[in-house]
């Protein structure tokens, strides 16, 4: 089987880092590059984190391109309280010795996708600013991306940043609007499914049996995230939001997808950044997105743990 070639647009971020780990632990996936946007942390911090995590994993050959420092239109929103001030919880990785690519992420995306139309899939697990601006700068990008998998939105589920809105979408709703209506084949992984994929403290303890730098990194990185969730919801676990996007490749059978017309509110009222699906065809508009509305969460978390155990046992003992 040829592995699926992917580029991840990301705002690392604890669960972003876990996504890199899962991608690198998965033979079904070939991670070709990371492009960085603001979101969980500033773009500078996110770039540093991406380079540091890749170096930690011995994968510094994977290029990292730094992108936009601000959302398209709205003000900058950062979520340091969830991801810790560094963006990686309590993990303390050394300053990376490698540097980002000289290209801006917008141009990097344009160049990579147009060089090999239909060959590479894009996984967007932060605010969609880079992707939206790349589409506006080079409209042919829309037909060159094989497939776009987005972590974002909350369809029937409540929001996690406002009562209605999910963080990645709320952090740049205008960009989400551009991307949703771009014509790129999109699979959306909203809170409806990510909230069913909980990594519990006991799971993290299980990983420690491998006694490896990777398992310790996961423990340190998730510590702040776990505290935050516990304080907010009384749940002793954290959602694997971003890693779940990779289920579309490594375990698609776990996801229940429905094709729907999905839009995002950009009208600046209390629903700003809220995503909704037209379940009953009220808008008369054609479907634009495959939305994950259910997942066998425990099985995904088990798969995640097994892959982390394998990675710990093989790479960095």
């Amino acid at each position, binding site marked *: 089987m040829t592995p699926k070639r992917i580029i991840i647009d990301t705002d690392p971020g604890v669960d972003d880092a876990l996504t890199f780990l899962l991608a690198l632990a998965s033979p079904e996936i070939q991670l070709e590059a990371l492009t960085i946007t603001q979101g969980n942390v500033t773009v500078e911090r996110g770039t540093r984190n991406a380079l540091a995590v890749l170096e930690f994993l011995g994968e510094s050959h994977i290029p990292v391109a730094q992108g*936009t*420092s*601000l959302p*398209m*239109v709205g003000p900058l929103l950062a979520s340091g309280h969830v991801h810790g001030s560094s963006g990686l919880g309590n993990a303390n990785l050394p300053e990376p010795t490698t540097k980002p690519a000289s290209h*801006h992420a*917008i*141009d990097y995306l344009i160049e990579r996708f147009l060089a090999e139309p239909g060959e590479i899939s894009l996984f967007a697990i932060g605010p969609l*600013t880079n992707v*939206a*601006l790349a589409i*506006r*700068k*080079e*409209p042919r990008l829309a037909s060159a991306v094989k497939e776009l998998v987005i972590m974002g939105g909350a369809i029937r589920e409540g929001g996690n940043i406002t009562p209605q809105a999910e963080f990645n979408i709320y952090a740049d709703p*205008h960009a989400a*609007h*551009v991307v949703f209506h771009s014509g790129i084949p999109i699979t959306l992984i909203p809170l409806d499914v990510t909230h069913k994929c909980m990594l519990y403290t006991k799971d993290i303890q299980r990983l420690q049996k491998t006694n490896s730098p990777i398992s310790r990194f996961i423990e340190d990185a998730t510590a702040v995230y776990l505290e935050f969730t516990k304080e907010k919801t009384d749940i002793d676990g954290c959602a694997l939001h971003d890693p779940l996007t990779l289920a579309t490749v490594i375990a698609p059978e776990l996801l229940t997808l429905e094709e729907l017309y999905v839009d995002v509110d*950009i*009208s*600046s*009222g209390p629903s700003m950044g809220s995503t909704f699906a037209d379940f009953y065809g009220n808008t008369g508009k054609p479907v634009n997105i495959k939305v994950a509305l259910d997942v066998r969460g425990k099985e995904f978390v088990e798969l995640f743990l097994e892959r982390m155990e394998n990675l710990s046992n093989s790479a960095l003992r």
Partner: protein
Amino acid sequence: MTKKRIIIDTDPGIDDSLAILLALASPEVQLEGLTVVHGNSSTEQGTINALSILELAGASDVPVAMGCELPLVQPSLLAPETHGNTGLGYANLPNPGSKPIVQNGCDFLIEQIMSNPGEITLVAVGPLTNIALALRQEPRIVQAVKEVFIMGGAIRHEGNTTPLAEFNTYVDPHAAHIVYHSGMPITLTPLDVTYQCILLADDVARIMQVGSDIPPFIEAATRFYMEFHDEYQGIQGCVINDPLTLALTFAPELCDYEEYYVDVDISGGVSMGKTFADFYKMTGKPANMKVALGVRPRDFIKLFVERMQVLSRRIS
């Protein structure tokens, strides 16, 4: 006298083409390039128009870079009823022999501004998509650009696209929002002043007294524009918005300015794209631009007509 180095970001467009000609006719400015954006015409048609106008004026050495084809967020809105299907009214310029540069318009703006810090004056006479995208890709152009002159908005004046909104701002209100709040030094030329600057058939007749290819172009382009103004707005003559903005780069005394906090409504309601100034400091926010609110229209029209005559003589 050192010439002011300018780049015009434009959607040609009848009054855009007159602004380009005015730049070429004016010894106070040096036209470093044109970046083309959607608006009055599609970006593709606008680029052809830009190249044709430069060729008409013997200025094909000025680089033309194609920018964005669509507004940042809103759907596309072009203005064939105002500018004709080609964007140049009844004018029929030959297809240009020259081509746009390969570089994207946003990248051209970034490169020119960043490699000449404090030197480049930007004259934005179309929707602000290119400039907004450039700002997001390279935030340091805020410090590196010398000044930005924008044709757009309607402060106390009514809109020309919706009852409240002016065309350039309405077409890409999100881009206007980005540019207004960027921190760049902005001078805004809203409809409040441009709608006082009406080019009359008599003025065009004076330009026509000079024999070259330029006056017949101006006559054919503005005849269509005048018919539009008559039919839709009951105005005799045509409003030459963009040339006024260009003229302010070297003849600031044509207008009176006030500094205000100016914002644009992007909330998607009936006021979408409406610009407003905080005259009474209700928002508590600091001024973010100079707004031209008074103009000496006949002085400007006289300057415009004379410069068109000079340019026509020069190329004849």
